[in-house]
């Protein structure tokens, strides 16, 4: 049998390597990139990322842990362990939901007084003061942009659990605070791709269009889409408090938009819808009455 020259074997191996590389490199590039909404339209599954490949559905368990890491970074490492008193609300999320900072959360000294000299000495070597990144951090002199340090954890939280609505909303809030509206919009798009028709995310997207892009028409369209999605949701989804709040805010914002256009019938229609779910129907009724008065009033005479 004729012996093949080693050079031919080498050429064959190189050809095989090249072929394999052309097959694997696009896949490896995909693993390295954070999946974007646009890529899913190319026939990939909605949560086809490296964590799904490695951990499967079990990755969802880590979503909340990543969110807790974001909160820990927000406190510059001053954070209760599993042995300490746990906080009920995560301070990193409260401003995103329009709430004021809870004075008691992650208390000023959740550890209490040191019980012994070892604990007292220990506290000199770890973060020992309740601070927030957006208010100067541990030294009190940090720039507000230091809040950006929480963002990787919020992104990882949504990569781990693509149905983690809170992480998308909190990420959107802080990206807007950091003057990154385009990134906030992309993040919300990603959330909507993983959670089609989610009313909370649609409300935030509309708000982003109105406040940061000053695009009222697009904001109106997104909010109207939110209303349509709300109607199609089942009773279980409608019972979610945050979703109810987002629905109410969506209606209220649509009413304001229509009022600004002096479209009184639409304004009254939206206000009537808000009245049905609002905890303060009297205040809404007052606004409806005002809108009716304006609708009934004769149009102002045109100036000569």
């Amino acid at each position, binding site marked *: 049998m004729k012996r093949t020259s080693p050079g031919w074997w080498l050429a064959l191996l190189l050809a095989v390597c090249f072929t394999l590389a052309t097959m694997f490199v696009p896949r490896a590039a995909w693993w390295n990139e954070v999946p974007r909404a646009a890529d899913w339209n190319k026939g990939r599954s909605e949560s086809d990322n490296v964590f799904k490949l490695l951990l499967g559905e079990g990755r969802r368990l880590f979503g909340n842990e990543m969110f807790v890491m974001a909160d820990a970074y927000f406190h510059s490492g001053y954070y209760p362990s599993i042995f300490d008193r746990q906080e009920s609300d995560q301070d990193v999320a409260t401003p995103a939901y329009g709430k004021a900072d809870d004075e008691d959360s992650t208390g000023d000294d959740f550890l209490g007084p040191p019980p012994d000299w070892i604990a007292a*000495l220990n506290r000199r070597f770890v973060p020992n003061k309740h601070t927030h990144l957006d208010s100067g951090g541990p030294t009190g002199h940090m720039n507000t942009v230091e809040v950006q340090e929480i963002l990787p954890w919020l992104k990882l939280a949504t990569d781990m659990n693509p149905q983690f609505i809170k992480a998308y909303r909190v990420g959107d809030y802080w990206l807007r605070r950091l003057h990154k509206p385009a990134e906030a919009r992309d993040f919300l798009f990603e959330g909507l791709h993983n959670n089609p028709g989610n009313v909370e995310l649609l409300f935030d997207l509309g708000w982003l269009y109105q406040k940061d892009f000053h695009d009222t028409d697009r904001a109106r369209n997104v909010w109207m889409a939110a209303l349509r999605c709300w109607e199609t949701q089942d009773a279980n989804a409608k019972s979610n408090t945050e979703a109810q709040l987002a629905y109410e805010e969506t209606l209220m914002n649509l009413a304001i938009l229509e009022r600004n256009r002096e479209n009184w019938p639409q304004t009254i229609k939206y206000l009537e819808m808000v009245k049905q779910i609002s905890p303060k129907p009297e205040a809404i009724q007052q606004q409806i009455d005002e809108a009716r008065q304006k609708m009934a009033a004769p149009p102002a005479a045109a100036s000569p």
Partner: protein
Amino acid sequence: MNTVWALTGIVIKELYRRKDFYVLFVLTALITLAAGSVEFFKDPNIVRYVKDLCMLLIWVSALLITIATAARQIPAERESRTIFPLLAKPVTRGQVILGKFFGCWLASGTALAVFYLFFAVITGSREQHWPVLDYLQAYLLQWIMLGIVTAMTLLGSIVFAAPSSTVTILFIVVAGILFLGRHLNTVALHNPEPLRGIIYTVYFIIPHVELFDVRERVVNDWGLVNWLDCGLAALYAAAYTALFLLLTWLAFRRKSLN
């Protein structure tokens, strides 16, 4: 003292002949650089997660290097029978223990310095901010802590049968203290007597190596720890190191070399 330094020099030379340090350093560098190359929300200034990861890898690597180096010193001398000509020089058993201790401690300190240099370069190039004193303090505290670990490992290498078991047990013990040490008093308070007393006793007996862990402060830019507190911690570490070395010497003195 010259005898001790001669033994120390041999241990340091051994470190850079072995592959442990190089492998761990390359792994740390690769993982840190890979993590640093990821860009979140098109913001190249996000750096704390890289610092956090790099510091964690430095702590794990330093513990592995220290424990693995210290655990095999005396068993290797016994196995290759070089302990007999060594003790016939004459070198006392106490000098052997001291020489091995200083060798391992200095070797781990040298390796740690290289890791911290890498850390400073990586984070400084990204942050454009060089808190050299903070890094130096973190390095010194960690190195002091490695002194306790080295002494504990030397004691383990005399007590336990093989270096592999010494490495495993010491790594579990040190990791356990790092994770749980500072919380044992809280756990004790939530238990009834006599368990409370037992846990509290353990809490006061164990060397609190977690005292020297200032990673959270370095990562989150908390600034320097008071140097007086560092001095107190160093005294605490010196006491435990001396205690473990004394126990090692007592155990080694009675140990049959055959």
